[in-house]
């Protein structure tokens, strides 16, 4: 039993890695006061560019770089029209979602279902042999290690550095920042682009590691929406958002398990089930937050968070 639990936990860590990148990228973006709704399409498009570049060069690392650049480009389009031209960020993001998705299918169709390079597990020498913890944490591909590292890094950056303070204050009060000599629009553009790069990495993490290959469907459709929901219900806090991503990974692994236990139920149900379950788990947490006075909800109340004050609003600087 001990073995199977650690194998399952390792599976959760691996399947959640791309979601960690996407959700934390979006956290960074939204903390700066910008909504990047294009996640679902941007992940697919960067999954495609990542796979195609890796295939062309024969190495996965240029693929990851190309994916990050793709995610960043999408973010630049969003900030160009959303931040600088003052259009609704939700509208731009929604249009980009579909444009990116269809662009990915259109440009990627010649590479559909072809073999390509993929990232393999690299066990860390001594640590991987540790009982129980070893296989869970130290027997993965580099991108999974990177997802482990990203969580504390982003948390430290946001809450313990001067740049992080600037990031948060731009999201809360752009006018105040402007008065203090910090250009809010430029700062927002930078962090939207950085968040976009992380979202791009999430795409490559799918097509080059977690669900290797490209096709229609690729298998990461819908993840972008989950990442968006995680950010909101995770209270815009990187640690809580990451926790949510792992819970979703657990649900996905549980789906595979239940499929073996109940062969009579069609497998499609188990593939779709984690999505509504996750959203409704988050909604229930969200609903119970409104009753903070009840003692039973005190733990949940600890999880509450408020959105950045200026989220989605365009700051008009003179």
């Amino acid at each position, binding site marked *: 039993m001990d073995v199977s639990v650690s194998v399952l936990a390792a599976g959760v860590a691996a399947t959640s890695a791309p979601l960690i990148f996407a959700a934390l990228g979006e956290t960074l973006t939204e903390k700066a006061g910008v909504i990047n709704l294009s996640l679902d399409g941007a992940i697919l498009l960067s999954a495609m560019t990542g796979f195609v570049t890796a295939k062309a060069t024969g190495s996965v690392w240029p693929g990851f770089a190309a994916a990050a650049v793709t995610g960043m480009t999408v973010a630049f389009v969003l900030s160009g029209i959303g931040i600088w031209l003052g*259009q609704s960020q939700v509208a731009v993001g*929604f249009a980009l979602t579909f444009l990116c998705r269809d662009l990915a299918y*259109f440009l990627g169709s010649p590479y559909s279902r072809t073999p390509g390079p993929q990232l393999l597990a690299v066990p860390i020498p001594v640590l991987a042999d540790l009982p129980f913890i070893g296989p869970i944490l130290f027997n993965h591909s580099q991108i999974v290690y990177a997802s482990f590292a990203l969580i504390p890094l982003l948390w430290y950056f946001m809450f313990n550095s001067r740049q992080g303070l600037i990031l948060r204050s731009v999201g809360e009060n752009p006018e105040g920042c402007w008065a203090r000599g910090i250009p809010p629009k430029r700062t927002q553009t930078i962090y939207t682009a950085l968040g976009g790069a992380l979202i791009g990495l999430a795409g490559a993490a799918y097509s080059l590691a977690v669900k290797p290959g490209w096709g229609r469907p690729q298998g990461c459709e819908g993840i972008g929406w989950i990442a968006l929901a995680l950010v909101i219900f995770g209270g815009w806090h990187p640690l809580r958002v990451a926790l949510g991503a792992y819970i979703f990974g657990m649900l996905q692994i549980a789906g595979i398990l239940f499929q073996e236990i109940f062969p009579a139920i069609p497998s499609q*149900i188990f593939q779709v089930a984690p999505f509504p379950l996750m959203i409704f788990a988050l909604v229930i947490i969200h609903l119970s937050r409104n009753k903070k006075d009840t003692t039973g909800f005190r733990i949940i109340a600890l999880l509450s968070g408020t959105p950045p004050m200026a989220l989605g609003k365009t700051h008009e600087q003179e």
Partner: protein
Amino acid sequence: MLMKTIQQHDLTHLVIRFFCITGLGFGAVCLLLFTLHLSPITIAKSMGSGALSNWIRISHMLSIWTPLLLCSSGLLFTFRAGLWNIGIEGQMIIGAICTTAVLRLPQAENSHALFPALAMAAGLCGGGIWGMCAGILKNRGGVNEIFGGLGLNFVAQGIILWLIFGPWKRAGIASMSGTNLLPHALWLTSPAGWRVAPVALVLSCLAFLLTALLLGNTRFGLRLTAVGKNSKASRLFGIKPELIGLTAMMLGGGLAGLAGGLQVTGVYHRLIPAISSGYGYLGLLIVMLAGYRAAAIPCIALFFACLAAGSIQLPIMLQIDSSLSGVIQGACVLSALLVHGFQTKRRNT
């Protein structure tokens, strides 16, 4: 006199905007095709003939136009109230499920005249209730309608898959191809050589006209606008924004549900997992491109339907992926946002 000059100015403004948007959108797509060594003219010809070359193709294109028009009409209500009804896909699915449920009743086969109408009504109600769910989540739970709607989309998808693979599965085999065909007597009839049921066409046109009328000429439409523009101020006039928003979600969901029901009775004659075909999301893009106003919606929906119908031919004729139609649609909406952004920027400076 002044009124007239304003109108003329508005008209030239609109014409300029139209040419900017189409030029930018199509220009970008053409550029993309040139870099891929594809000829935009060949593709345009192939798509045009795929959508419009004979009556069978035109009527097929109209069978896509019908749900698009219905969904866009429904979305006009929600956008007017300042709500993003992303849950429209789920509302379409639930509408289709409710319609199928009524038609699968054992009594349905014997009383033909009544049941199709009843089934349509069931679709309308089902979609409306699903829309209300997102509205209630927003009012009572403070859950943003975008995320409530998305969650409900996933739930609807789970339900339809469960039904097709579980209780309503075909005898022996359950597959992605859907349930058994409905009895022929329960189909919405279309004349020989038609791919679209005239009833569906008439219903969606009526729904659109009714929507435009309600929004433009009634007190309810004015209230919707008030809530959408400034819900706090509308409260001062004795309007209840929650109630108005909920009504808008219900109406929008109802029209989407009707569209789902028509897909079952008029197009597929059975329930399939992809019954919504993404038409709800496409409706969102159409309304955005139409500037959230009713006037341009039928034309834009027609254009989108032509793209969708024409692109089916592309893989066969030119070995090009059919998702090109989505690229064109997305490029148009994005360039509309870009042009609108530049225009407001210029006006302000």
